[in-house]
Each structure stands twice: as structure tokens, then as C-alpha cells.
């Protein structure tokens, strides 16, 4: 965790500085005279993030200075693979949603996730999307009487 703390501390510190120097000044206008600046709280929070991140980095560095010791991987290869697969399914489903239709996107999301997670049974691949989409339709359109799309 020491290395992860060090890296996350550095990233958060840079993010905070970036927000303070570039994003907040360019995306929040100054208030008219007599008002409390709308930048006040965002600035205060980012200053807190930068300060605490520096503390986190220093703490991690102090831990590492005790000498190297083996650390358990926070992101195992199988986990990363799985997350990337899920991200890809979401990307495809959103593209289909925007360019084709929400119904097809729903099918892509369910079937894609099933396939990504290793489901190969044809019955599950057909029955699950059909049941879920039908269930949502029955719940909203029939039971509650409202359209959601």
C-alpha cells in the first residue's frame, strides 16, 4: 500500500494544483462586489486536498524508507482484465444506445456482460435479457403506468 499511497498522493496533489491554478480560475467567474466569492469553497477544498496529499506522500515515503518489503498487488491481472472487459461492454452499449436504440443497447449490455464474465449457456444468454427487459417493461409501463424512454 505504501507505493500505492505514494502514487495516489502525487496524482491527487497534481490534480489539486491543476484545479487551483487552471480549472477553478477559468471555470468560475469572480463574484460581483459585495458577494462572497463562488471560488471560495472550491479553492478551500482543493487546498485541503493538496495539503493532505502532501502529507500522504510524506507518510508513504517514510514507510518506504524503513526498507523495501514485498507488497501485495492491489490490482491483480485477472481483475484488471475483467474490469477492462466490462468497460468495453459499456462502451459498446452506449454507442448502440446513441446510434441505434435503447432496447438493443439493453440487450447488448446484458448479453455482453454475461459473455464477458464467462457465461456460455445459450439458455441464459437468451432468457436473461428477455426476462429483464420484459420485467422492466411490465414494472414501469404496466404496473406503474409510466414511460421511461
Amino acid at each position: 500500500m505504501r507505493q500505492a499511497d505514494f502514487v495516489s498522493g502525487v496524482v491527487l496533489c497534481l490534480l489539486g494544483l491543476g484545479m487551483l491554478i487552471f480549472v477553478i480560475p477559468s471555470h468560475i467567474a469572480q463574484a460581483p462586489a459585495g458577494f462572497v466569492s463562488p471560488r471560495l469553497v472550491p479553492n478551500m477544498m482543493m487546498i485541503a486536498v493538496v495539503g493532505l496529499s502532501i502529507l500522504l506522500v510524506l507518510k508513504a515515503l517514510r514507510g518506504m524508507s524503513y526498507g523495501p518489503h514485498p507488497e501485495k498487488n492491489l490490482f491483480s491481472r485477472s481483475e484488471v482484465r475483467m474490469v477492462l472487459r466490462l468497460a468495453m461492454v459499456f462502451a459498446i452499449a452506449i454507442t448502440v444506445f446513441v446510434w441505434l436504440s435503447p432496447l438493443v443497447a439493453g440487450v447488448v449490455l446484458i448479453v455482453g456482460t454475461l459473455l464477458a464474465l464467462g457465461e456460455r449457456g445459450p439458455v441464459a444468454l437468451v432468457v436473461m435479457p428477455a426476462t429483464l427487459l420484459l420485467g422492466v417493461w411490465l414494472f414501469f409501463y404496466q404496473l406503474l403506468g409510466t414511460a421511461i424512454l
Partner: protein
Amino acid sequence: MEHLIAGFANVLMPATLIWIVIGVSLGYMLGAMPGLGKATGVAVAIPLTFYLEPVAAIAMLIGIAKGSTAGSAVAAILLNTPGEPSSAPTALDGYPLARQGKAQKALKMGLFASVIGDFLSTLLLIALAAPLARYALLIGPVELCAILFFSLTFIGGLAGGSMIKGLIAGALGVFFATVGLELETFIPRMTFGTLELDDGISLVPMAIGMLAVAEMAVQAGKMRELDSAAATIVDGAHPNDRRVTRAEWLRCLPAIGRGTAIGSAVGILPGLGASVGSFLSYGVTRKLSKTLEAFGTGMIEGVAAAESADNAVVPSSFVPLFALGIPGSVIAAILIAALIMHGLTPGPRMFVEQPQMVANIYAAMLCASVIMLAIGLLGQKLFAQVIRVPLRRVIPVVLFLCCVGAYMDSGSIFSIYVMLFFAVLGYFSRKLGFSFVTFLIGFVIGPNLELTFRQSLQILNHDPMRLMGHPVAVVFLVLTVVVVVAIAFSNSRAAVREELAARAATSNPRKLEEENR
């Protein structure tokens, strides 16, 4: 009292009761699945309640919260994998009982302890919230700002393993709450020209992404080990293996009483959370036992102590929410969105402005406790089967419902983007040990914190010395400093112990390599 009676009359209508039954059943099933806790369940279900009557909607969500807290014992006992971290002490004795063929006995005791803890804690909420709210009405913006600041610091310090990370998460939560039009000047803040962000970031897609989608991504990574553990449990042949005997009841009742008291006290304090309550209760019961060496080998008192405390935390965590408008737990933070959406703003004013609605919620909470007992007893065997459904079939269902829920919040694909953005943030916060609970609570109290801070600046005329005229605020600011120092001191001692333990545990490089793979 008359409001409460009218509340029962409103809740005991078939149209409302059915939603409590659905909520408790759904919650029980969600809780039984590892990783799908009450916060996930409620976050996903909020959009489903958009079109329900307010009482039915809130009753259903409370049913989900209560059902899933009790249901999380199922996975802890049968899989040794708690549905939620707060059920981890349940697994210490529940799983050995299951391995001895006494799974039904452990599940029943878990259910009874849950219902008793939950019911008594709800009565405590009813007794405490309104009187406390009367005092809260006397509090001005300066005091409220100090209390909110103290709560956020306290939660940040305690919610995770590291206070620094907790405070960073809280600060980021408040920061994200500032996105959108600023309320005094109507100046857009960090909207990047996106109209959808003018109203700020919506809590529903954010909570769904951060809690449910991120959790599913984590669960997908350890899918195989969870699935393989489910197939190993069988029931014993003797009838006593499947029921709680009179002697066991007599042994467990003091543990349940203690657990309820500890859980209720822990719930009232913002930020401690159900895990602290259940571990504390388990530890005290173990310490007071004459056979403390037998704990961890299948002592039913361990299950009773942990579950009663775990369930007592939920209702009592609504005390600060109802009395002060401060969410003391993640479930309270998420419920704020639902309550506001259905016309009830949590805080001291709600007891004055909408006493009947508050009474309806109380009645729904008490009914949900009783329904939880009935559903648990009737459906325990069925719910126990839920854990045998492979995760590869559970995750797609949850992700699909997450998308439906997030989309319904605004009727736009933008909500899905928000959900995914916070899912990524939630995934990394879980992996890197940043408390997403503190983040969410920071986000929820952010607008109020900013408003009271601005008002305080004006009231104090930017002069810190004028704080002396607000002794309550001074007390809370001093408490904040004391809490930060105390937690930092205790964390640094714990870190040294962990460092030594980690070095001992990871001294075998081959084992480490296997784990990493």
C-alpha cells in the same frame, strides 16, 4: 402519539404494506449476495420509487435497508464471505456452525437477533429524534457550520484505515458538491458549458456508480473464489441442528441486549458505522464469556451479538439525520435523496412542518421490522439458495438495473456518463483505500456546509474573534481538533502494528507472487 397511530393507519394499507414486503424481500436477497449491501440496494432502488406514493416509496427503501442488513448474515454464515463488512464478525462463529451442519440454527439466531436489535433501535429513534430536534432548532448557522465540519472530520477520520485518505475523500465530496450554479450569484461553477451540470451533480447516478457499479467491478474480479465457496455447505440430520433451543436462547438474550445497546449508541454517533458496532459487540460478548476460547469455533452467542448490533446501527443512525439533518452513515446519505424527492427534507424543521410524514416513516420502520421476521422465517431456505446463483449471472442483472436507475434520474444518457465517471472513482477509492462513504457524506452535506459557512462569514463579519460569542461552535471546533489529534495518534500506532504484521505475513515471496497472479 396520535400522529403515530395515524401513521400506522396509513402504513397498514395493502398498497403500502405490499411495497414494504417487496422492499424487505428484495433487501434480504441483495444482502445475501456478497458485496451487494444495503447502500447498493437502496441506491439502485431509489429511481424505481419515483412513481410511487411518498409513504410507499420511503417504506420500500427502508424495507430494503433493513432487509439487506439482516440478509447479509446469510452470506457470512454460509460462505464465510460477509454480504457487508459489518457482518464479518457474524462469519467468525456463523461459518463454523454451518460447517458443523448447523447452518439453519445460525441463520435463525442471526434473524432473531437482527429483528430484536432493529426493532428496539427504531423505538430509540422515535424516542430521541424529536426531542433532539427541538434543541437543534435553537442552533444558528455558525453553530451548524461547526457541527457539520466536526461531523465530516469525525467521519473522515474513522470511516477508513487512514485519516488522511478519509479527509481527502471528504474534501473531494464537498468539492464535487460545488459543481453547478452558485445559489447567491447564479455563477456557474465548473460546468464546462454543460447545461446538465447547471443543477449540480445528481446524487442518484453518483451513488449508483460509486456504490453499485464499482462494487460489481470489484466482485467480478474475485468471482471464481466466491462461487466455489457456495457449494460446500450441507445441513445436519438432527432437528436441534436446525432450530434454536431454549438453552441457547437463554445464553443469547444477554448478548442480544448488549448488542442492541452498543449498536444503537454507535449508530447515533456519525461516522462510526455498523462495522464498529458489530465488532465491538462481538468483542464485548467474547470478553464477558466464561468460554472465550470457544469463540471462533461456532458459538451461537457470537452470531447473536454481531447481528443484533449490526441491525441496531441502521435505525439509530437516522437520529442525527432526522434531528440535525446530518447523515451519520452512507445509507442515511442516500436516503436523503429519496426523502427530498418525496417531499420531506430531513432536519429539525420536518418535525414541525410534516409531523404526519415523520410518523408514517416511523410506522413503516416498525412494520418493516415485523415483516422482516416473517419473511426471514418463511423464506430463509429460499434466500439461502440465492447465494448459489453464480455471480456471472448476478452482475449483469445489477449492472442493467443500475443503468435503468441512473437513466431514470434525468431521462438522459448524461446520467449514465455521471454514473460511469463515479463508478471509476468508486473503484479506485475501494482499491486504494479512500473512503467512498466519507466522499458521499461530504457530497451530501456539502451544500449545507457551504451555505452555513457563507452565512457565518457574514454573521461574524469576517472576524474570527467574534466566534467567542458562539460557545457551541467553539466547543465543536475544539472537538474537531481533539478528534483529529486523537485519531492521528491512534492510527499511527495501528500503522506500526500493521507494518510488523504485513512484514511477517509477506515474508514468503512465493505465496505473495501467487496471490498477485
